[in-house]
């Protein structure tokens, strides 16, 4: 068993918008299997969904030939999600959650994804990919 504990699921899929529903189903099922409440499973679904969306839109710029790998593991009351893409390495220091705007005059339509991920997950880190290629995002959620 690695530092990530027990591996529960490993998905490899094209980074396409029409596959997000499949990912969300798997994430939700895993969360509920691990004893998460419906509300927590839903939150986790949102966070992982946003991370996948960012990979599709920004890492691969909508190129549907990109590959997305998602590993879900469990360790001592913690669920760990690792999302690997093989796009060009991004400047992870530049990926910061934007504070939501409540003034309607200054409201912007986009930019919420990273904020939602940070609101929901307990830890959000970029790791060095084992292959040296692409980007590896780790999300950690404490589930008791």
């Amino acid at each position, binding site marked *: 068993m690695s530092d990530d504990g027990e591996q529960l699921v490993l998905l490899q899929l094209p980074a396409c918008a029409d596959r997000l529903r499949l990912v*969300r189903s798997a994430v939700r099922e895993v969360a509920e299997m691990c004893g998460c409440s419906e509300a927590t499973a839903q*939150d986790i679904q949102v966070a992982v969904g946003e991370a996948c969306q960012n990979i599709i839109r920004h890492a691969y710029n909508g190129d549907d030939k990109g590959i997305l790998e998602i590993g879900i593991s469990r360790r001592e009351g913690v669920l760990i999600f690792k999302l690997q893409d093989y796009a060009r390495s991004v400047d992870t220091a530049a990926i910061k959650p934007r504070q939501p705007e*409540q003034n309607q005059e200054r*409201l912007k*339509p986009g930019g919420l994804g990273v904020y939602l991920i940070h609101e929901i997950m307990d830890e959000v880190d970029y790791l060095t990919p084992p292959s040296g290629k692409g980007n590896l995002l780790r999300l950690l959620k404490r589930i008791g």
Partner: protein
Amino acid sequence: MKHTITQENGATIVAFEGDIDLESSPKSREILLKAVDDAGHVLVDLSEVSYIDSSGVATLVESLQAARSKSGRFALLKPSDPVRRVLELARLDQVFTLHTSLDAALA
């Protein structure tokens, strides 16, 4: 994602069903912006929306702003629990007008 459009007491009600995500949000954007363009009062019925992501929220925000720019009315009707949760997380539950019933929305 499915949608229906109905009229009630001068309001256009756009009801979505299913997931509003990166795949379906472009379509929902097209539908809502057209509704806002055509009508002075738009209600978005989200009672049957099982999931919404940031792209879906962005569509709602853009539609709200489009309605405001033409002094129109734009409100969300009966948002489902998943929708409410994402709006709360995004601190947008105080930005949108939310109605829990059609009667309240049309009052």
